[in-house]
C-alpha cells in the first residue's frame, strides 16, 4: 500500500517541546519523530492543539521549551519547502480572486515590487492546476466553485512550489463522501509521485485510513507518534476521544472506527479478524 520510506532527515522532530498560548499550556513533553515520506493523521479531541502543531512547524508560533526541527532545520516563517492548507480554507475564499491567481500567489505572492509573472512561473502554476484536476475551472472565481473544487485549488497552491512537507488542516471538512474520497485519492497519488510527507489534521479518520501510514495523536496534553496500525486500537481511541470508540476490520481487511456507545463487543464477535484490545 505504501512505498518504502527513503532514508534521510525526519520531516518533523520534536524534542521535549511544550507550547504555551495565552498563558495556557496547549501541550507539553512532545518528543517524537515523523519520518520523511509518511502520511500522517493528526488526531485528538477539539482544542488538543492539532492546528497549534502546524503553527509550530510553520514557524508561526514559537515554542515555550524544547527543540523543533522541520525537514532538518529550525522552523521559520516563509519556508518554501512546506505547503500549507489552513482550516476552513474554503469558507474564507474570496469572490475577488481567480483560482489561477491564487495558485500563482503561492509562487510569487511574497515578492515585493513590480515584475510580471514569468512564463516559467505560469507554466508551473498550470502544471500544479492540472495535477490536482483543477485546470478546467482555473480561470473561474474561487467563490463560484464547489467545496471539493476549492480544496483542489488549495492543494494546488500548496504543491506549486514543490513542497516536501504538506500540512493540511481538516481538508475533508464540509465535503460530501464522493469529494472526500477523491481528495484522499489525490493525496495518495501525490504521496506516491513525490514522496512528500503529508500531515493531515482530521476529525474523522475513516476516509483517510486507506492512505495513512502514521498518526500523531494528542493524548492527555502530550503529542505522540506511532504507525497508524498501532493507533487504530479501541482502547487508545476511546481514551483519546473520551468516548467509547470501536474498531472494525472487514473481511477485506479494511479498518473502520465507529462510535461504540452501545455494543462494541457484540460487533466484534461477528468480525472475522477483529482487532480486539
Amino acid at each position, binding site marked *: 500500500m505504501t512505498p518504502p520510506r527513503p532514508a534521510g532527515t525526519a520531516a518533523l522532530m520534536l524534542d521535549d517541546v511544550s507550547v504555551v498560548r495565552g498563558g495556557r499550556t496547549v501541550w507539553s513533553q512532545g518528543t517524537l519523530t515523523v519520518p520523511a515520506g509518511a502520511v500522517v493523521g493528526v488526531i485528538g479531541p477539539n482544542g488538543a492543539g492539532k492546528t497549534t502543531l502546524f503553527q509550530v512547524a510553520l514557524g508561526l508560533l514559537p515554542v515555550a521549551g524544547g527543540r523543533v526541527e522541520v525537514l532538518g532545520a529550525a522552523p521559520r516563517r516563509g519556508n518554501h519547502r512546506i505547503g*500549507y492548507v489552513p482550516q476552513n480554507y474554503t469558507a474564507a475564499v474570496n469572490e*475577488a*480572486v481567480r483560482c489561477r491567481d491564487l495558485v500563482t500567489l*503561492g509562487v510569487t505572492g*511574497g515578492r*515585493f*515590487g513590480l515584475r510580471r509573472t514569468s512564463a516559467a512561473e505560469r507554466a508551473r502554476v498550470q502544471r500544479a492546476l492540472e495535477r490536482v484536476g483543477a485546470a478546467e475551472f482555473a480561470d473561474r472565481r474561487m467563490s463560484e466553485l*464547489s467545496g471539493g473544487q476549492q480544496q483542489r485549488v488549495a492543494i494546488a497552491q500548496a504543491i506549486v512550489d514543490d513542497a516536501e512537507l504538506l500540512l493540511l488542516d481538516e481538508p475533508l471538512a464540509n465535503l460530501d463522501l464522493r469529494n472526500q474520497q477523491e481528495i484522499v485519492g489525490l493525496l495518495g497519488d501525490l504521496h506516491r509521485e513525490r514522496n512528500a510527507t503529508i500531515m493531515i489534521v482530521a476529525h474523522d479518520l475513516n476516509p483517510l485510513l486507506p492512505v495513512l501510514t502514521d498518526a500523531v495523536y494528542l493524548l492527555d496534553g502530550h503529542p505522540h507518534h506511532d504507525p497508524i496500525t498501532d493507533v487504530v486500537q479501541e482502547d487508545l481511541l476511546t481514551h483519546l476521544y473520551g468516548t467509547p470508540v470501536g474498531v472494525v476490520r472487514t473481511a477485506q481487511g479494511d479498518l473502520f472506527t465507529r462510535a461504540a456507545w452501545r455494543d462494541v463487543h457484540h460487533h466484534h464477535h461477528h468480525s472475522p479478524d477483529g482487532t480486539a484490545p
Partner: protein
Amino acid sequence: MTLAQPLAAVQFQSNWLDILTSPFMQHALIGGSMVALAAGLLGYFVITRQNAFAAHALAHIGFPGATGAILVGAPLTLGLAVFCVGGGVLIGLFGRRLADREMATGTILSLATALGVLFAALASANARTTTSVLFGNLLAISRGQLVVFGVFTAAVVLVLAVIARPLVFASVDPEVAAARGVPVRTLGLAFIVLLALTITMAVQVVGTLLLFALVVTPAATALRLTARPGYVAAISVGLALIAVWGGLVLASMIDLPPSFFVVSTAVFAWVVVLAVTAPRRGRRTPTNPAPDTHHHHARVPVSTV
C-alpha cells in the same frame, strides 16, 4: 408650486465651456483626477480586506480633524490627514478579526463624530464650512491643496507599486500568506495609512458622506466584470475618472453641487454593470454539484470573465 421655484433655478448654462475651462474648474479637474487615481487603485483592497466600513469610518474620523483645524487655525488638509492616519492606525491595530475591528471602528467613529461636533461648536464654524466637510467642495480646491494632493497621490502610487503583490496575497489568503513569510500585519498597517491619505483627499472632493462613490463603488463595479486584481485596478481608476470628469462637466452645464453629479455618475455605472452582469452571475455553480471534476458533464455552464 413649491417645487417649481427651486427647480426653475436649475437650467442649462450655455457658457458651460467657459466655466469648465476656468481656473477653479481646472483645479477641480486636476484634484479630482488625483483622487480618482488613488481611490481606484485602493478600491480592490478595500473590498477584499472587508474594509468598507473602515473606509466609511475614516472619512468621518476626518471630520473632527477638519473642524479642529479650523479651531486652531491650521490647514484643513493637515487636520484631516492627522485624524485619518491616526484613526487608520488605531483601527489597523485592532486585530484581524472582523467582529473586533467592526466594534472598535464603530466606537472610534462615534468618538470622532462627537469631537467633530465639539470642535465645530468651539470654533463657531459656520454651517457652510461644516457642509463643505460633509459633502465636499470640489470647486474650492486651492493651488496649495493641489500640491498636497500631488504628494499624497505619488505616495499612494509608489508604495502600492512596491507592496501590491504581497498585499493581494495578504488580503485574499491571509493565513497562507503569513505562513509564506509575508508580513501580513505590517502590510495591513501600510495599507490603512495609504487609505487614510486617499480619504483625506477624497473628503475634500466628495465629502465625508459621499466618499464611498469614489473609494468603493468603482471597484465594486469592476469586480462584477473581472476578478483579476490588475484589471480591477485599471477599471476602477477609469470609472472613478469618468465619474469625476463627467460630474464636473455636468456641474458646468447645470449649476448644482458637483458632488451630486460625481456620485450619480459612479452609481449609474454600477447600476448598469449590475443589470448587465446579473443574469449571467445568477447561473452560478450550485453549492453541491454532484460530480466534481474529470466528468465533462460537471462542467458548469457559466463562462466566467
